[in-house]
């Protein structure tokens, strides 16, 4: 099955005759090379007769290449004709006859202009994101008020399902990472403070740091990665398959049906998880200070009671619902922004996680400034 495409040229004055043979198919490695050599051979001739009788097989690529040669000759003012073509080859040559295709060339602008354009575009998108987020928050709040007026429309089953999914099923991983971080903070606290002979202050460090900042931050980041991405993927694939449109035409509000239950579920789940994270981290601290510093549980608890007050605990807990709100808003909004393709879904899920984690940290910073200002 491997008869390379061949041609034999016979010149008679200015007119030439070419006999083609072999397999002019795209699977033949030399087909393009042969066509180029053929074009070169007949370049000077004004009249070419192409004999197709010897061709074993031909496909669209072969037909295209042969006809390109013929068209080149004609374009230069010469004459070219086919002869002895088998009927099926003639049909193929007609079907795949040469014609000019306008294939757009990619235009590359200057690097600097492109860079500036990119920066500008990114900034515009960032502002648009903020505007879209605020508008979406408004819609959600309106939907919540509608649900308060018509509580029967609230999807209670969906809400419970999501609380289980976001909250209960996250318990092990949230407890584990907070426990580990508690251990690490305690160990470093002990070692660093030992140099000042103040290793018992490690308990103060653990208590304040964990309750005020770490537990809520870690839990929120974990939930943004775990549940936020799931929300975006879920809503995004519904959007992709027109399920959101189906809800709309049935007179259901996608925000009521899809967004509000998830938002409320996160609002419930995240503070609960944060509380669990607090406990796990403090337990980690207790274990580590006992093991490394010889500070027994009674002493640990005693020092902890002196070091922290209710407000230390509340500072962390107050932040949790805000984190939940931001994660829920961003992940549902990104899900709604998914377009037709799978690629778009992937892009939105990534955007959702990155933006959620970023906003969680920004909000944590804003709260730190706020609590410092009111001296809480």
């Amino acid at each position, binding site marked *: 099955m491997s008869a390379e495409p061949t041609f034999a040229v016979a010149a008679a004055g200015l007119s030439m005759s070419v006999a083609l043979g072999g397999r002019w*198919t*795209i*699977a033949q*490695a030399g087909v*393009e090379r042969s066509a180029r050599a053929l074009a070169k051979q007949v370049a000077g001739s004004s009249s070419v007769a192409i004999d197709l009788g010897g061709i074993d097989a031909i*496909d*669209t*690529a072969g037909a*295209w*290449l042969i006809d390109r040669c013929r068209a080149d000759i004609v374009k230069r003012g010469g004459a070219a004709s086919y002869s002895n073509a088998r009927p*099926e080859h003639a*049909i*193929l040559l007609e*079907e*795949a006859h040469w014609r000019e*295709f*306008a*294939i*757009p060339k990619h235009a590359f602008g200057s690097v600097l202009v492109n860079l500036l354009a990119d920066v500008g575009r990114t900034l515009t998108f960032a502002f648009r994101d903020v505007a879209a987020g605020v508008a979406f928050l408004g819609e959600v709040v309106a939907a919540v008020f509608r649900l308060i007026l018509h509580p029967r429309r609230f999807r209670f089953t969906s809400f419970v399902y999501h609380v289980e999914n976001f909250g209960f099923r996250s318990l092990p991983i949230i407890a584990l990472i907070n426990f580990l971080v508690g251990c690490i903070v305690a160990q470093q606290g002990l070692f660093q403070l030992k140099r000042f002979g103040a290793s018992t202050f490690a308990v103060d460090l653990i208590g304040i740091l964990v309750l005020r900042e770490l537990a809520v931050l870690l839990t929120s980041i974990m939930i943004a990665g775990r549940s936020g991405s799931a929300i975006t993927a879920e809503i995004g694939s519904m959007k992709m398959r027109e399920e959101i449109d189906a809800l709309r035409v049935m007179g259901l509000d996608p925000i009521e049906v899809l967004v509000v239950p998830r938002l409320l579920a996160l609002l419930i789940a995240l503070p609960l998880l944060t509380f669990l994270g607090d406990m796990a981290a403090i337990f980690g601290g207790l274990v580590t200070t006992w093991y490394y510093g010889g500070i027994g549980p009674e002493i640990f608890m005693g020092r902890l009671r002196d070091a922290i007050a209710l407000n230390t605990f509340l500072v962390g807990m107050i932040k949790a619902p805000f984190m939940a709100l931001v994660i829920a808003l961003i992940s549902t909004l990104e899900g709604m922004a998914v*377009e*037709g*393709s*799978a*690629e*778009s879904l992937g892009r939105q899920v990534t955007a959702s996680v990155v933006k959620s984690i970023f906003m969680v940290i920004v909000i944590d910073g804003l709260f730190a400034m706020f609590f410092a200002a009111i001296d809480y």
Partner: protein
Amino acid sequence: MNQTAPIKQDIAIGVRGLVVGFGEKIILQNLDLDVRRGEVLGFVGGSGTGKSVLTRAVLGLVPKRAGAIEVFGRDLDALRPQEHRALEQRWGVLFQHGALFSGLTVRQNIQVPMREYLDISPRLMDELASLKIEMVGLKPDAADKFPSELSGGMIKRAALARALALDPDIVFLDEPTSGLDPIGAAEFDELIATLQKTLGLTVFMVTHDLDSLYSICDRIAALADRKVAAIGTIEEMLACEHPWLRAYFHGKRGRQFDPARGRG
């Protein structure tokens, strides 16, 4: 029934004693089927009887429990991976929903197999892609669109262009005309017939479209009771006494084609 005839020379795809199942459920049982070289074989069967499963089993996408599949006289099980790859270049597949790569434009989709298997210049690759786009009846400006920007009919055409990228010998079409309007479906049928004539294709077409069966299929095979219940020309199918086939071809929708009852 288990006595299997040897597979003859002019057979493009020969299936013998094929068994496919999922878990407890047997979908295809001792199925025999021959697709002749250069013919258009229409494959019909009720929804869920395993038409797509058979196609996928031949393509190697679904594992088979028993049986042999020969393509161009070569047993698929006996092929080395290299030979299998060479064989895969000789068939093109049009999936039911197109299965175009959503991250690539139509042109890039068509060029995927070319890039993978052929050593040809970018210019020729562009020209061939444009040629295939024109052959399947798409406008040139569709070349640089993404699949999500195309209508259902355009997706089918673009997917057919990709299936034809390497000028295959066999094309598998999974419900090529479903979801197209009657005019578009008729055009698509005509397109397949033209391509089949010019390129000498063997076409294996799973379809529900009675018009396609009448207008372009050389032979029709019907899947019922986990095997090929009948195979033959449209006249033979109309004369067949199998209850499902009678319902299919002489039912409300088939009636218009029934020469015995008028209109058709």
